[in-house]
């Protein structure tokens, strides 16, 4: 279980806000291993989302290195990052980020379209992913015809459909009530049990309790990193 998926060294991200320099990440070091289930915690503004965006290849660091599956991602250009996002990463957002006018199935198909998968295979994989999150009976529904929990399941199915090496979730239950949150956590646990590596941001302790390792950020630095006894 020492297969390294993510290797981050001195990861730094600064934003120039007019005259002010905002230092969102001030040198983060960490490694994530295959089949880990990691929760990232920390107060608001501590840099959790910034770190997740970096790990999710949606953003590039101002300084430092990021290695994903042995590839240095931190120096890649826009299109190369898009390819990595497409193949290696599944991202679940707090606000779901689904295409509002497309069906659940089409939303889940999206990553496969950009992977160049042909129509029929695409639909098969997408409906497979939807049944993994328990939404086989909602494939033709649009996001506004689904509950919050169901929308998040669609988003999870979309994140899973390309069989990513890592599933990222930035406050996936932030917009959901506690019952629905528990349902979503159950889905994550099942995925983890099936071998999926997961990194999840949350600021709720009871959500973080589902993870096997908790990394806490404070002011853009790693404050603590604790593993639960297995």
């Amino acid at each position, binding site marked *: 279980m020492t297969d390294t998926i993510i290797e981050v060294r001195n990861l730094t991200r600064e934003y120039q806000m007019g005259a002010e320099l905002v230092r969102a990440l001030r040198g983060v070091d960490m490694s994530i291993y295959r089949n880990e289930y990691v929760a990232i915690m920390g107060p608001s503004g501590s840099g959790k989302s910034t770190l997740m*965006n970096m790990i*999710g290849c*949606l*953003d590039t660091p101002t300084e430092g290195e990021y290695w994903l599956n042995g590839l240095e991602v931190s120096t890649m250009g*826009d*299109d190369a990052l*898009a*390819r990595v*996002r*497409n*193949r290696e990463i599944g*991202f679940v*957002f707090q606000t779901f*980020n*689904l*295409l*509002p*006018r497309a069906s659940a199935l089409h939303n889940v198909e*999206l*990553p496969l*379209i*950009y*992977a*160049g998968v042909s129509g029929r295979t695409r639909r098969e994989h997408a409906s497979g992913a939807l049944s993994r999150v328990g939404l086989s009976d909602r494939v033709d529904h649009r996001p506004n015809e689904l509950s919050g929990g169901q929308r998040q399941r669609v988003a999870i199915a*979309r994140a899973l459909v*390309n069989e990513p090496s890592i599933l990222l979730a930035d406050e996936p239950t932030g917009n959901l009530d506690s019952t629905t949150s528990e349902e979503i956590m159950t889905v994550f646990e099942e995925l983890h049990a099936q071998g999926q590596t997961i990194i999840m941001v949350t600021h709720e302790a009871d959500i973080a309790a589902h993870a096997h390792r908790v990394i806490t950020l404070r002011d853009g630095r790693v404050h603590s990193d604790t593993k639960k006894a297995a």
Partner: protein
Amino acid sequence: MPIFEGLKLAFREIASHKLRSFFTLLGIIVSVGFLVAVVAIIQGMNAYVRENVAGAIVGKNAFQIRRTPISVGFIDDEEWRELQRRPPIESADAQFVTRAIPDAQAIALQSGWPTPQADVRWGNRTVADVLVFGVTAPFQVVQDYEMEAGEALSEVDVRERRPVVILGFDVAEKLFDNFNTAIGQRVRVAGTMVTVKGITKAKGTVLGQSWDGFAMLPLPVFEAIYGRRLTTVISVKMTEAFMVAGAMERAEEAMRIAHGLRPNDENDFTIDTAEGLISFWEQLTRVIFTVVPAVVVIGVVVGGIVIMNIMLMSVTERTREIGIRKSVGAQQRDIQRQFLAEAVTLATLGGVLGILAGGGLAAMVAVLSPMPARVTPWSVGVALSLGTGVGILFGVVPARRAAKLDPIEAMRAEQ
């Protein structure tokens, strides 16, 4: 992302904004429609003038005696009714004219308007839409026809109603590989077997139309095929230009006698040369063909700018969608292709609607006026490529803007 996916997306997007898409395209539709309609109408008018002038084009130092004038200008109802009441010109009239102008070089009769078009067939080869005339032998002198091969029609051919034909150069060239063996061949003109007696030398083009696409039959043979036409036309050729004016006066006098008109009666025939008409028509066509492209280009550019603005607006509206697409792996060229496909589809749709509108307008003109309007394939081609070209040209900027959006910022955008 394959092109096909881009097109599918484009159609879905356009279909979900039908009204907006339509108004976006109005500029293109109007410009392209205008182009197609004007070209159709001009082509139609050309055909109309050709058909009229085909029978009327007057040889050197010659004039014609016709039932109605050659003009295509505006004719008011009163005049139109007066023209309809006129008696036909007949061979009896020609005898009066012949007696009045003994110094004429040639006086001919030819079949009158409308000149029929027919297929000419030899073996398995067919030349379509050939203008078919019936003439008397002197017509060839009036028109200064020279023979490329074979012989001209003779007085005897006409008198004896011999089933022979003189083919225009173009028709013969399309039908036969060798002109010498062509003479004596039997061809079908409008289904009737006739023997090729001669082939005329090429006369070139008049009004942009070939002047050699005809089949010339002895007048009685022509009348046997097409029935007696409403009227014939008398052509008179003088040896020198200065003799024409005097001859026209004598022809007028002879025709008034032939038709039994009293001193106060108006002429119920027209004596005409076609030169004025032709030069007028050539000028008009030239003006139209310089003005129309300018108007169309301006319209299309304006239409393109409208498309560009709507596409920019659409990029702004769909910033979040673009962010989502990029977050799951869309590369810049995927996004660029999607928006370019949309702009091109939109503009091409504008071209198609424009062609339909232009075609409709042309059809309306054809129904409501005596002019046959013909939508020409090249104008449809130009219209389509204009639409597509505009889509590409004015779609690039919005598409590039969309492609370059930052995924995180784009996903944060309001929707």
